[in-house]
């Protein structure tokens, strides 16, 4: 074939310049390779392909440059460094948290001169290192802006000297005319203060000290006076009791000395192979208390049935003892059966049983005393030689004071840490009566309901700014020392009294003198007072040896008490109880406590009416309905919560909220239910009969942190009974064998994490945990966990790193019902359709926090590796790497990861964008309140995930200490905040690589199980099977 040339047109054939130009355009431009390698390339015009290179480089450079810049905040060093303060290191001071009937021996952690955390003081034999939620949260009250910052006369500021002069003149005039001076206070634990008040009384004459306790135990005081001639509260030993019967006494939550009782109680609830025994605990109560939720057997009785039940028990015990019974004692069959069982068991354990009763009725308490007497409890589980000084309020004294004031016969009233206008059932009456008092002075820390009616308001120091002492239990003294200079222009109340007595010394010296005179001589160890004093200041406590209890003879009249007891009434009843978190209302402005869920209802930022479920079903009521409660002549609208376990004809609500003048966080939160408290005889009664409840048709959105009540039969909770456990220590934990068998089978590489040194692990004993919530507050304090406020909790945005899950189970055909029905078309709320007996519930509390899984599902889903695994087994969060996709939170099977939905802390880089400035948030972002923040822990900004870190800052601190001393870390040296706070010692923490540590030993225990072990995420937290001693309790 010959080589022919084809052409499409003459232009192509002739190759005209126009054609050549067009043709060349069709072909790509040659790459300027030679030019690039030429030396003068830089001067050349940029080639097309360089553009992309330039673009790529400049974008990358800009990105790198833009991501590095972080604004620098200046820190100013000390010009003259104070002694003892090393910036960055914490100092601990032993002190005492004592506020009315709240008591805890504590260590105050201060950083750079500001207290930031409360720890328990293990030197105290009363609280033994335990704390309560209130003790933990009390530190926030120090930085409360609602505290009055300077002395006031009426609403006007006044100078201290001017106030002193005026008050002294007036008191002098009263003294001259022989007028009456009254000092009204809450219970005072301080022996020095009591001395001072006595001296003040002697100085002015006609002075009486009245103690008012809103949640009173005057019934016990009065009964003890009648029975034993001693108007005191005895010491109780729950640890020595093998059988405990409590009639509505919430001794783990609020009754008399809860931290002490928790320590005692729990010591006899822990079981092990070596000691496979535990106490037996019957609780006869009307609402579900924290104590009741821990009982082996809860029997729901209505409030008016309580005295009858106590009489019935007396008759049974008396029967065993061959004594004659008393009249009364008619109770329901169900209660009767359990009472019989309890009576038999107590009689069998004579001398090792204990009956306590929460009633404020002296007759009822007299019968309780009689029972304890017959059982030989006095001298063993109860003793008057180591009596308790809590709850000294004698209701009649207070009602007499009100009458005196109304009659105009009180010339001066000095109020110290008491707020009856709020906390007295007829506060209005008290408020009116104050106006008839010539001179009224309040030492309260804020302009509260009562203080705003007094002539003078001379604010007291916060306890962390004060010198003081306390004697919670006979012979057990503890000291308070200031941990910070007074923040405001306040003055300690005791100093004011000293000033008015023309004393030249201040209270610090008064205290020392008192100790030198009265306490120092009782010891022999120290030969000089100063060395004694220094030592006690350092250790926080001074304790005389415990007195061997002597037998006490009972001389009460049981028959009279029984016949004076009111019979059980018909119809619906209402009881008023003290909130575990908030107490009697003093702390209603404390956001940490307001946001600490109620241990049973899990409601925060509100008090509600607990309604028995059958009643609610009958009346078509659901959670959040508003009802009008009418009792004691008072009508009040309250939101309701359907509460399983309530006695079928009882409503209950808690005091502690409904403050009007307490501060930004607490004003108007909840309702004040003190008006439901009535005065019966000489004592206040906390229950009402003839109660009517009427739905108002209004709806209220409750802030509840847990809306599903059962654990759905899942292996989240493992439990067994004591006899099963005695037979087989693996009882309740049988499934572990299956997991141990299956777990090594995996497609993934084994042992990707090497733990060569330490490996942190935790163990939580479900038998010990009582669900009090102290750990939650301690965690928030230690880790700067933000408070989010009521609206945010309603939107399920709470931030707690540790939560306490509360699960119910119900009586079923054979086994207990732990599942709810599927057919829940209403969204939230419990669906216990198949429950027959609403009164019979069992409760389990389970602290839930980051499990620090070895195969953590959160770790592999984070696109930016912001959450990762440490070489010590911690699952750690890198806040500044987190971009907030929240995938980790979705993929967490335990749902313990928390997202910063808003700028809760003002740590955000955007200014002025705090979305919700209401309540707690506004308080917590205040500059003063932010002083409570722990400088060791990053304050998280908006848009990042946070979660439990096992208090990594404390672990690092402990490791560093050990390293400085050139020794290995000892077991128990590194403690998490939740662990230290726990009054029940439910949490064990340490190195699991070392087989000798306490936590390693718990892992070897047959009761140890892992929540959701079948997921093979390998959690670092083991739980101990809950053992209930609940067989044959009728």
């Amino acid at each position, binding site marked *: 074939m010959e080589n022919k040339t084809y052409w499409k047109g003459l232009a192509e054939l002739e190759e005209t310049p126009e054609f050549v130009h067009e043709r060349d355009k069709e072909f790509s431009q040659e790459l300027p390779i030679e030019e690039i390698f030429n030396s003068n390339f830089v001067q050349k015009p940029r080639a097309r392909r360089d553009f992309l290179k330039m673009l790529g480089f400049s974008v990358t450079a800009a990105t*790198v440059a833009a991501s590095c810049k972080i604004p620098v905040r200046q820190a100013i060093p000390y010009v003259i460094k104070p002694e003892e303060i090393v910036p960055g290191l914490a100092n601990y001071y032993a002190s005492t948290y004592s506020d009315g009937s709240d008591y805890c021996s504590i260590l105050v952690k201060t950083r750079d001169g500001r207290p930031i955390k409360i720890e328990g003081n293990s030197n105290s034999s009363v609280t033994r290192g335990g704390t309560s939620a209130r003790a933990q949260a009390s530190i926030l009250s120090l930085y409360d802006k609602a505290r009055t910052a300077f002395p006031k006369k009426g609403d006007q500021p006044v100078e201290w000297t001017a106030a002193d002069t005026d008050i002294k003149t007036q008191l002098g005039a009263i003294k001259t005319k022989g007028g009456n001076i009254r000092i009204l206070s809450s219970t005072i634990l301080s022996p020095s203060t009591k001395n001072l008040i006595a001296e003040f009384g002697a100085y002015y004459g006609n002075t009486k000290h009245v103690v008012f306790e809103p949640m009173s135990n005057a019934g016990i005081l009065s009964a003890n006076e009648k029975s034993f001639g001693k108007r005191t509260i005895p010491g109780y030993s729950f640890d020595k009791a093998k059988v405990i019967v409590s009639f509505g006494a919430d001794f783990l939550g609020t009754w008399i000395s809860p931290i002490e009782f928790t320590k005692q109680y729990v010591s006899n609830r822990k079981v092990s192979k070596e000691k496979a025994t535990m106490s037996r605990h019957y609780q006869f109560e009307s609402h579900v208390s924290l104590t009741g939720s821990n009982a082996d057997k809860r029997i729901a009785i209505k409030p008016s049935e309580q005295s009858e039940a106590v009489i019935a028990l007396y008759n049974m015990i008396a029967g065993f003892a061959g004594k004659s019974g008393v009249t009364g004692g008619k109770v329901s069959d169900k209660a009767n059966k359990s009472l019989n069982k309890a009576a038999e068991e107590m009689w069998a354990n004579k001398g090792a049983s204990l009956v306590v009763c929460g009633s404020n009725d002296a007759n009822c308490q007299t019968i309780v005393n009689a029972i304890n007497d017959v059982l030989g409890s006095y001298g063993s589980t109860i003793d008057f030689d180591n009596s308790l000084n809590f709850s000294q309020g004698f209701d009649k004294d207070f009602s007499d004071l009100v009458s005196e004031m109304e009659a105009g016969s009180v010339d001066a009233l000095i109020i110290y840490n008491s707020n009856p206008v709020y906390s007295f059932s007829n506060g209005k009456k008290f408020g009116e009566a104050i106006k008839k008092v010539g001179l009224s002075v309040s030492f309260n820390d804020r302009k509260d309901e009562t203080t705003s009616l007094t002539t003078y308001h001379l604010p007291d120091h916060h306890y962390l700014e004060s010198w003081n002492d306390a004697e919670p239990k006979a012979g057990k003294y503890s000291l308070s020392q200031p941990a910070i200079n007074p923040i405001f222009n306040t003055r300690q109340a005791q100093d004011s009294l000293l000033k008015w007595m023309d004393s030249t010394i201040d209270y610090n010296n008064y205290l020392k003198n008192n100790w030198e005179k009265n306490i120092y001589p009782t010891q022999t160890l120290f030969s000089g007072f100063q060395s004694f004093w220094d030592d006690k200041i350092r250790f926080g406590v001074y304790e005389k040896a415990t007195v061997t209890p002597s037998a006490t003879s009972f001389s009460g009249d049981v028959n009279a008490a029984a016949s004076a007891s009111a019979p059980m009434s018909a119809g619906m009843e209402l009881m008023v109880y003290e909130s575990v978190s908030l107490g009697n209302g003093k702390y209603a402005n404390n956001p940490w406590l307001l946001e600490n869920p109620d241990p049973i209802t899990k409601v925060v930022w509100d008090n509600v009416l607990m309604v028995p479920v059958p009643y609610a079903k009958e009346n078509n009521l659901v959670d959040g309905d508003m009802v009008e409660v009418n009792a004691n002549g008072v009508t009040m609208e309250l939101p309701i919560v359907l509460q399983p376990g309530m006695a079928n004809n009882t409503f209950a609500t808690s005091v502690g909220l409904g403050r009007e003048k307490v501060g930004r966080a607490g004003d108007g939160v909840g309702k004040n239910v003190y008006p439901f408290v009535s005065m019966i005889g000489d004592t206040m009664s906390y229950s009402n009969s003839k109660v009517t409840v009427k739905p108002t048709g209004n709806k209220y959105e409750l802030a509840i942190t847990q809306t599903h009540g059962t654990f759905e039969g*899942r292996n989240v909770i493992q439990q067994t009974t004591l006899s099963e456990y005695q037979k087989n220590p693996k009882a309740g934990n049988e499934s572990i064998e299956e997991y141990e068998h299956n777990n090594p089978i995996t497609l993934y590489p084994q042992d990707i994490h090497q733990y060569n040194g330490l490996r942190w692990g935790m163990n939580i004993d479900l038998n010990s945990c009582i669900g009090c919530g102290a750990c939650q507050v301690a965690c928030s304090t230690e880790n700067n966990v933000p408070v989010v406020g009521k609206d945010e909790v309603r939107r399920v945005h709470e931030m707690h790193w540790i939560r306490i899950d509360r699960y119910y189970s119900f009586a079923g055909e054979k086994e207990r019902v732990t599942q709810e029905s599927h057919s829940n*078309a209403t969204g939230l709320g419990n669906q216990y359709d198949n429950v027959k007996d609403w009164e019979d519930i069992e409760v389990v509390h389970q602290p839930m926090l980051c499990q620090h899984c070895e195969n953590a599902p959160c770790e592999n889903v984070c696109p930016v590796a912001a959450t990762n695994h440490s070489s010590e087994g911690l699952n750690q969060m890198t806040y500044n790497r987190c971009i907030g996709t*929240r995938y980790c939170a979705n*993929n967490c099977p335990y749902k313990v990861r928390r997202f910063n939905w808003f700028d809760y802390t003002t740590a955000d880089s955007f200014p002025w964008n705090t979305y919700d400035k209401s309540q707690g948030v506004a308080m917590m972002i205040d500059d003063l309140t932010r002083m409570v923040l722990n400088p060791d822990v990053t304050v998280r900004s908006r848009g990042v995930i946070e979660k439990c870190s096992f208090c990594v800052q404390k672990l690092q601190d402990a490791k560093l200490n050990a390293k400085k001393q050139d020794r290995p870390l000892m077991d128990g040296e590194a403690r998490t905040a939740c662990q230290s706070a726990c009054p029940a010692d439910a949490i064990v923490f340490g190195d699991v690589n070392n087989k000798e540590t306490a936590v390693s030993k718990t892992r070897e225990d047959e009761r140890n199980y892992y*929540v959701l072990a079948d997921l093979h995420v390998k959690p670092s937290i083991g739980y101990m099977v809950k053992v209930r001693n609940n067989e044959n309790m009728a």
Partner: protein
Amino acid sequence: MHAESVVRAPLIYGDKNYHQITEDLCRPIEGKPTRLYLITITITACLMSWGLFMIGWTVWFGIGTWGLNRTVDWGWDITNFVWWIGIGHAGTLISAILLLFRQKWRMAINRSAEAMTIFAVICAGLFPIFHMGRVWLIFFNLPYPNSRGPLWPNFNSPLLWDVFAISTYFTVSLLFWYTGLIPDLATVRDRAKKKFSKFAYGVLSFGWTGSAKHWQRHEALSLVLAGISTPLVLSVHTIVSFDFATSVIPGWHTTIFPPYFVAGAIFSGFAMVLTLMLVARKVMNLQEYITLEHIESMNKIIVLTGSIVGSAYITELFVAWYSGNIYEQYAFANRALGPYWWAYWGMMTCNVISPQLFWVRPLRRNVWFTFFMSIIINCGMWFERFVIIVTSIHRDYIPSAWSYYAPTYVEISIFAGTVGLFLTAFMLFAKTMPVIAMAETKHILRISGDTQKKAAAAHSHSHEGSAMSFQVHKP
């Protein structure tokens, strides 16, 4: 040249020639916008602006403005993301897979389906970006060299795979769409009379002259992009499904997800193409180009993918029961009977039951019914994503943490905003670019045009011999 059977219905009706096609398809671009058009686009633009404002609101105040909570950390955001990504799938499928299967009927719809893909992916992309707590640190997702160690993203995370999958998908789809547009833009440029139009289309058409070399490169590039796109059809939604499948959450942790998600994506994508095209067809008088045959073909794909999705639902239920896994069993019982039962039954009705009606031919060819069904299917597919995401996590392992989720006005507004964005973008596209690929339609005119087919048939009847020789001469 190859011929098509006369039995096969034509794809272009009416007496069309090349010029007529150009006229028909350029008319909407060259005319003045109608009143209806202006009103509609104003509404959609307002919707879009409101959504963008709400995005700004979210960035300023935080994700707390949404209804998400401690238990349900993804809600409408990721539901909408998956939904929009799914919608985008039709474009890729039509461009790539139908191209490889030589389905000529794709010519009428591929342009707008591809455009829809682009806009849907933009809408989809907004959600994972703005659902981040700290969106300003989005570049942490990218593996760029840095001075932090260097610190790389976590290559194990499905979210990171998403970043790559979606950015690739977007880039390839955009290139594919634009490559196809170039000859048509050049046509519009050549017809443009106004100076600005001439300039703008001139720039956009990259100096296309229609020379043989241009066409050769254009074809080659289209083929390469089709090759790249084909695996993308399968991979993108597979990777999106990994967001759930690789987790430990009952109801998410499922190996069936990749095929199930891809089928669902095509299902919803076709529904959205139908929704848009049925409107465009009517408004822009394109009945002769988008024929009942097109609609019927798409409806057939809807029946197929709908049935796959339905089987997947039933398989999931079976596996939940058969596995003996109590969490899985609870998750599925909770879907059907729990607080979100309405979403589950909405999904079942819209996705499983209603598409089966398309087995009936008259319904498949009924424009109004098809339009109605396309809306139903898109609702159903939205429900599906909502059911998977929200009902699975709102009640997972630990009962104490269970909660309920409902969106806030902010989330609803952002979703409405993306619908506004999508429609605005599509309307701008329809007004400025040919909604039907002109050049490609011209390719098939000779074979599938009504007149041409009839002429060919007539020709072959009168000259049977020549028809035979035509066959013989075929290479």
